[in-house]
């Protein structure tokens, strides 16, 4: 009934499309970044641009800052999201209501969340006003700088507002799918609710959390609008840095932008590789352990 080549025919349009767009874009970046002259394609290959970029202090600061922000956002949002899912599960109908509320941050684009964070956390924002009414500060300048700040707290708040609900929703779905039987068995065997949470739910959540960690990291690492609008002038995240170089009139800056892009892609793809490695390891382990 089904021909041997059917699956290949079905995936062919997708593969052709991704090759012409995604793969092309990455390959173009690599070729441009190795390009020696400033003329047309061809000519000799050089690693000079990589040397220049990698020895640039500004780039190294950006690299460190971008990775730190992404790691911190990933850790906090996955821990809080996972905890929130466990709490939602115990809250019954209230949890279901919260689930509906959590759809909101998921639909809202980052751009609008940026506006919300400025409104709430800037020095004349809502929180600063509350603190003023409480008599803790006398004027806006005394309120700590939480947006456009060096520590990227404003940026982190945007990521958390978007990502905690994202993690919580996926984890909640997973937990509801598995909850009943395992938890009952554990309770019948005399486990406390804390034990049930840490020893039954947590291990079952592991694959979901690994997946959401990958997505939250990728986003916080590669987002453009958020650091572009909320970032400090002291340092920039890598995507913003490479965009500013790309739009510079100096053709050499454009090549440096491509170098940064290749490095960004290399980091992203390495992490994706790690993820798939861990995922297949867990699958094999579960198969081995389950039987």
């Amino acid at each position, binding site marked *: *009934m*089904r021909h041997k080549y*059917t*699956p290949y025919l*079905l*995936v062919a*349009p997708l*593969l052709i*499309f*991704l090759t012409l*767009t*995604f793969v*092309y*874009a*990455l390959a173009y*970046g690599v070729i441009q970044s190795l390009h020696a002259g400033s003329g047309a394609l061809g000519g000799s290959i050089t690693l000079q641009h990589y040397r220049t970029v990698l020895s640039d202090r500004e780039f190294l600061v950006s690299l460190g800052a971008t990775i730190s922000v992404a790691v911190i956002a990933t850790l906090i949002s996955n821990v809080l999201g996972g905890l*929130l899912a466990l*709490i*939602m599960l*115990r*809250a019954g*109908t*209230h949890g279901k*209501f*919260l689930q509906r*509320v*959590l759809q909101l941050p998921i*639909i*809202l*684009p980052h*751009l*609008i969340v*940026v*506006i*919300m964070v*400025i*409104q*709430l956390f800037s020095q004349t924002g*809502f929180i600063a*006003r509350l603190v003023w*009414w409480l008599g803790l500060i006398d004027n806006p300048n005394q309120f700590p700088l939480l947006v456009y700040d060096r520590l990227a707290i404003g940026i982190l708040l945007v990521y958390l*507002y978007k990502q905690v*609900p994202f993690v919580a929703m996926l984890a909640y779905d997973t937990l509801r799918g598995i909850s009943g039987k395992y938890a009952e068995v554990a309770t019948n065997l005399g486990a406390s609710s804390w034990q049930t949470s840490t020893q039954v739910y947590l291990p079952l959540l592991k694959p979901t959390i690994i997946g959401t960690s990958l*997505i939250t990291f990728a986003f916080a*690492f*590669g987002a*453009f*609008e958020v650091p*572009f609008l909320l970032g400090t002038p002291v340092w920039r995240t*890598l*995507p*913003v840095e*490479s*965009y500013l170089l790309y739009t510079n009139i100096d053709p050499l800056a454009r090549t440096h932008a491509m170098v940064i*892009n290749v490095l*960004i*892609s290399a980091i*992203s*793809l390495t992490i*994706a590789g790690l993820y798939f490695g861990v995922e297949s390891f867990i699958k094999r382990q579960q198969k081995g352990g389950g039987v």
Partner: protein
Amino acid sequence: MKGGKLTLLVVQCAILVFAGPLLALVVQAISLRWPFPSLLPTVVSVRHIVRLLWDNPRLAEAVASSLGIATMTTIFTLLLAFPAAKALGVYNFPGKETIKLLALLPIMVPTATVTMGLHTGMLRMGLAGSFLGVAIVHTVFALPYALRILMHVFELVGERHEQQAAMLGAPWGRVFYSITLPLVMPGALSAATMSFIISFSQYITTFMIGGGRIITLPLYLVPHVQGGEWHVASVYSLVFVVATLAALTLMQYLVRRYYRETYFLSP
């Protein structure tokens, strides 16, 4: 029902934290004056909102461009992801895992990076500055999500029902229309919703590939954010939210109507 007071408190705090900021956005939109220490705006007006929305051809154009590009992106994404998800979800074949990996990679690489790599090519092809070009780039980033959702649905549904229908002599088209489509429709709706939202919130991709000629809602909004015009930015943000919700509700309505017709009108 279940859970103690602490659980309830945490849930209530979470509702406040995640719904509160949107309420603040609404208050900001209707406030004409809101000087520092006051917790509520001192002058509230709705008339200036009407003025911002009415007789504003550029805003109308931005909404239309956003809706048009998001619709194109959703259609492209579903057309590419649907057959591929069927193959990857149901069949086993050599190379399957590699293809899955490749198709999910665009989630990982930053949008700005991919867009810079495509920019020159798009210019050469004459796609830069066109709706088609922008929709194509949005599709790259919507595809992994749509594919993941649809693949999962096909894995659950399998092929048994289709095989039964085919064995009973139903032609290919009829099997697809009467069996496959109703079974995977909820997944297709989620995939479409996701693609739509992704396209709707793109900024840098549209900015670069559109080359200043295509102004979607985010592009229209950003200068007001950079200029610190919070009031205007809040009003346009609400337009954004309303447009998204309207489009998603329409999609849901269409699917529901489709089900009603499939289940009650056909034999």
